[in-house]
């Protein structure tokens, strides 16, 4: 009959082997996850600059704001883009202090995809109105976002692209940002 010490030794050895095997499995999964990106580079991934996005995915166009309220600066703190399963470019900007996202600009070929593409969304709409954005019909909404902050959003369509700008601030600044994207 085995002593308790020997039994604990068996369990410990087994645990070690299991951890090694689990690590191999995880490493394999990581490699499997990267393989499609080697074959094609148009899946959703992070980019360092908008120029990289333009070079890699060659999107039809990427509209960039030229106006930023005080405390928000170019370049974006996060850029991710994809061509599959639909084209999309998302830019996030942090506010003063550099921690929290205060501005999100998305463009995609799939209508309504902003809910999936934005980590912050306007969930409690207090006001909703139509707005003429330099000749383009847009929807302006004001309310509370899912992070509890007051926010406003503007959505419009230009040809086959759907744009959404979400700002943790008043709609007046939001309108200026949106208008700066259209030339």
């Amino acid at each position: 009959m085995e002593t308790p010490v020997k039994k604990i030794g068996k369990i410990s050895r087994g645990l070690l082997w299991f951890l090694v095997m689990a690590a191999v499995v995880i490493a394999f999964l990581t490699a499997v996850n990267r393989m499609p990106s080697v074959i094609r580079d148009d899946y959703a991934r992070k980019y360092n600059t908008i120029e990289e996005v333009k070079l890699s995915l060659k999107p039809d166009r990427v509209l960039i704001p030229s106006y930023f309220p005080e405390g928000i600066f170019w370049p974006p703190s996060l850029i991710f883009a994809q061509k599959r399963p639909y084209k999309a470019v998302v830019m996030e900007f942090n506010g003063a202090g550099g921690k929290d996202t205060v501005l999100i600009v998305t463009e995609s070929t799939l209508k309504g995809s902003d809910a999936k593409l934005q980590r912050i969304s306007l969930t409690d709409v207090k006001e909703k109105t139509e707005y003429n954005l330099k000749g383009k019909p847009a929807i302006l909404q004001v309310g509370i976002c899912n992070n509890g902050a007051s926010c406003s959003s503007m959505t419009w369509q230009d040809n086959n692209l759907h744009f959404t700008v979400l700002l943790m601030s008043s709609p007046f600044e939001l309108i200026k940002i949106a208008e700066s994207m259209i030339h």
Partner: protein
Amino acid sequence: MYAVQTVLHSVIASVLADCALLAWNLKTPAVKQRFRFLALFLPVALFPIYQAIFPRRGDVYFRLESLVDANKWFFLDIWGGIPLLALFVAILILTAAIFFVQEFVPIVFQMLRQARGDEETTEQRQDEPIERKMLEAIEGLPFSEDSVEILNDEDLILFSSTGFQPKIYVSTGLIESFSAEHLKAAFAHEIGHIRRSRKPLLLTAYILRMLMFYNPIAMIEFRKLAQEEEKVCDDIAVGLTGKPGALAEAIDMLRPAEESTKIRGIEGVASGIEHYSHELLLKSRIHRIGERDNDDLNWAMPYFVTVFFIIGVSYFIV
């Protein structure tokens, strides 16, 4: 999305369960069953639990940081424009078809056969030596001879029905072919099945298997689980008779003859594969009976470690 994730989570659960069985060298069939059960149970439950706790799991941000994003593979084009997703869906449909043809329909036939078996037993038992041999075999086993039904059939038939009035069905052909000792071992194996039917593991596993009728991993794991069940019942049989050799010989005698499996065409290939798989199981059982070895390890800790890893890794697979 649920179907995709259950399949992916099944793969992870199956692989990690096998890793655990290997790492801790777990051999007892009942213990192996518990690990294999994870690959049936966890995939069904995990996705709704994950989504309830973290609703944004599966959005783009989560996928960017995930361990595996299945969409990356599914939207790869193969054969000029057809996405890999189409192949995946085809596999699920094929698995569903196999389930209905190979499992669901035979169960219906089995139920009909058992009903026919009831009708056959209304015949008078005429052959006294057969009945005497049956009584000799059942003696000493915890089972009433009144619950043993003899079927007038030359083939080697032995099966049991469970429920409130369990019965063992045995053919005259088998009684004539087996010695009393072999028959006792065979009966003891069936008593094992009847006893095990009172525990819900296999029934629960089959319900989960039916819920994931499209999942090829669930199909494979359930079959492995059923194979382990045979070995558990072998252990029960040896425990009841104390004669492992008799059981091994009885199993060996139940191996089907080669000639009976020569069918041509696709049916022949499928039949051949099924025959080969059955052969492997029977050989493995015979070999195992000869070298029965129970784990001397407390499997609780390995089990919980495995569950923890399955839950943790599966969370990051979308």
